[in-house]
């Protein structure tokens, strides 16, 4: 098992380097293929009154005139050994692992991301609990009561959940619960600024529910389909024939088997969310990694975009690793193989 984990970790590190290389090419080389010069890239880092000479000097200072492999080499070196950045008035040291330095906001990328991570973690963890419990429970009940009013109602709501975008449900929820009923804090409330756990939860309850509504809908439909298929299997009939209680049949045998694909998707979804719940954080103005990604893209701040992408990739790879390990717990067949 330990060898397996080490092998997976090495593969994960290699995969991260591949991701950085691909992202680097996308943001630094593809624009050149589209006709943009190093000066064009640098024009995002100078004022609107800058002349061509000034822009070219900026391109040289930022290293955009160097060959791509040199730029990438500097980035990787920064990851491993740290880097120094000349701001023009001082030299800023960015310790390893240095994900880059923004010349727009004049600060290193990693501290920014770490500063915002707790908000994203708070959002993703709470929402994940809600959608996993709500979605799976609804899916199981729908499968067991197939064709009932509950089943039809739940699947109807699930369809709405899948169809309605967060920027609609989120704004609607804010309008009703924050601004009319005043039950919840307004948008933009930072959960980390709250004095106690209750206020922390209150500041997140709408984003949690809105986000969970979307995911729970998908999970309910997946669980229902999985359970319907599993409950028709021979081993379920055998379990019943052995006289096991229905509750045991459903939970220990049916659900356990149907959970494997759910777990796979859960890992991916959670990893993706930890890399930034872009729509939810934007709609509720939460200062997390997703909002950071939007700001970085809007300002075309390439080091920040690269940093967000990298941290997103880290979370997805880690989440998949954990899910792979959990397979062994959920499904004994994996253990034996």
């Amino acid at each position, binding site marked *: 098992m330990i060898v397996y984990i080490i092998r997976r970790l090495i593969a994960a590190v290699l995969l991260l380097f591949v991701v950085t290389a691909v992202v680097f090419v996308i943001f630094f080389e593809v624009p050149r293929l589209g006709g943009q010069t190093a000066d064009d890239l640098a*024009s995002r880092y100078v004022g*609107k009154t800058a002349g*061509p000479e000034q822009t070219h000097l900026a391109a040289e200072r930022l290293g955009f005139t160097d060959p791509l492999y040199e730029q990438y080499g500097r980035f990787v070196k920064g990851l491993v050994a740290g880097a120094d950045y000349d701001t*023009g*008035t001082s030299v800023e040291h960015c310790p390893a692992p240095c994900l880059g330095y923004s010349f727009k906001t004049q600060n290193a990328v990693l501290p920014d991301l770490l500063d915002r991570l707790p908000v994203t973690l708070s959002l993703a963890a709470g929402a994940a609990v809600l959608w996993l419990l709500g979605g799976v429970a609804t899916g199981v009940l729908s499968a067991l009561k197939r064709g009932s009013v509950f089943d039809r109602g739940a699947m109807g709501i699930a369809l709405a959940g899948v169809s309605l975008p967060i920027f609609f449900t989120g704004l609607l929820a804010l309008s009703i619960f924050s601004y009319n009923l005043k039950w919840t804090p307004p948008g933009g409330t930072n959960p980390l600024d709250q004095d106690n756990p209750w206020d922390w939860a209150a500041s997140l309850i709408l984003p949690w529910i809105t986000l969970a509504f979307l995911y729970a809908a998908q999970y309910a439909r997946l669980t229902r389909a999985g359970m319907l298929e599993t409950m028709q299997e021979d081993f379920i009939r055998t379990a019943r024939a052995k006289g096991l209680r229905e509750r045991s049949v459903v939970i220990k045998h049916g659900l356990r088997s149907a959970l494997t694909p759910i777990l796979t998707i859960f890992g991916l979804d959670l990893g993706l969310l930890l890399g930034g719940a872009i729509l939810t954080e934007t709609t509720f*103005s939460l200062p997390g990694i997703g909002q950071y990604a939007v700001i970085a893209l*809007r300002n075309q701040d390439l080091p920040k975009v690269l940093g967000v992408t990298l941290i997103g990739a880290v979370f997805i790879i880690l989440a998949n690793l954990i899910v792979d390990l959990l397979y062994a717990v959920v499904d004994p067949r994996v253990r034996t193989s």
Partner: protein
Amino acid sequence: MRVTAIAAGVALAISLSACGGSSGDGDSDGGGENSTPEFNAGVNKVYNPSDTKGGTLKMANDADFDSLDPGDTYYGYSWNFIRNYTRSLVTFKSAPGEKSNELVPDLAESLGEASPDAKTWTYKLREGIKYEDGTPVKSEDVKYAVARSLDKDILVNGPTYFNDFLDLKGYAGPYKDKDPTMKNFKAIETPDDRTIIFHLIKPFSGFDYLAMLPATAPVPAAKDTGTKYKEHVLSTGPYMFASNELEKRFTLTRNKYYDPKTDPDTGRKALPDEITVDLNVNQEDIDQRLQAGDLDVAISGLGVLAETRATILQDPDQKKFSDTADQARLWFTSFDNSVKPFDNIHCRKAVMYATDHEGYLRAYGGSSGGKIATNLMPPLIPGYKKIDLYEFESKPNGDIDKAKDELKQCGQPDGFTTNISYRAERAAEKATAETLQQSLDKVGIKTELKAYPQDDYGKIYAGNVAFSTKNQLGLRVYGWGADWNDGFGFLSQIVDSRVIRPAGNTNFNVKDPEIDALLDKALSTLDTKEREGLWADIDQKVMEGAYYLPGVDAKQLLYRPERLTNVFITNAYNMYDYTTLGVQK
């Protein structure tokens, strides 16, 4: 049960709104006062006047400031807001409507004293002005502040007026020329701790406008942290930074060393005890929070979203809490004269006549978004004169016959083909391009629409001479706002042929020596009325040359939450004045 609760909440909100604003208890500087909530109650008069101090003024921004550093900012709302924590030599008077266009001394005792040739300007600092740490402000701090703002490699965002007008003799700022005595910076003299003398390379009759720029707010050299200075600007204004979380929020609290006795002319009120500014907040949420009374000001001053605007204007209970702010901003379409056949004035005139001006206005939201513009200068600019050479007002849907006649004179009786560029993210500009396409099609001018990203629109695409020529961008949908409400502030960057550069242009179509000469004449004319007449003459020349197709003189709809006091629109910034606002606790 839930429906009942929601209905009760809505009813409560409406009933609270209907209570209206409370009566004021103090004087205002404006041309009238008003405590009754009604549409445009904050236009040309003070709404809800009050001298009551205390409370927290809550502001939010859908994006971020370009910089909080006074030497590195170019956004209008930033120049408005920055007066809360900095004081420049001169500033605009905080008063409603036209009175706000008046320049008044702030850090200085009086407006600048000009030499007869308008090339030397002298200011004297007031006594008793201190920084937030209690140290006194000296003239050399103003000199240093201007010097550091010259370095556009480091402080990239601010305007370049000081670079253009000061007699720098090659001086590039204190980050490059590290001599602490700044002996190589001879463009500014400080013979004593209170006197500051500017030496210009050419006459500039309106130099007080440059003394108004935030870059003249003092910065002590010892406290300058370069690109990091924006994280904590040393205050000279009524407020100072209590906290600053980059890209998230910042809070201002009272500066105990600000003495209102040293600030008799500007009209600052400094009423709230605290000002909070949330950054990067979703604009839809900002609109909702304003209407719910949870937020006091949308700091960008750009008004509510188009969909919110429609809702507010249709609901009398909401409309009475809103104001329409005229903007010193023109939405226009410019010609690239290097793209044939626009090198021929008659082909340009054909477009002027063929355009559906009502359609142009509809693209910007109809009458709530502005009014049909007939010439270049917006009405808010002092010296504005109405010029309607192409009968936009009497023929708001265009004049097909005259357009065809111009096409004949241009040698293109059957029309021609060209391209229209616009900023992809801007729905109004896309709608403008579409309405132009339809109206020009009626006279045989076939067009193809080209969308480009707004961030690179000027530098890489439509404002880049080589790109525009290569891609035959004959018509360019765009807009322009005045840096300040003055003919030079509005016109210089869009009609002076000498500002044309390879990229980042707003103007690359007006290359008229007569217009350049008129601009130079205006800059050396010290008499205000005469100078304003020259701006109008330039406007006339530009319209005669058919260099620009004026579209819409812009307006915005601002929302004025019930608990705000001392609310009025300042024409100087075309939004609420941010130094006078207070809140009911």
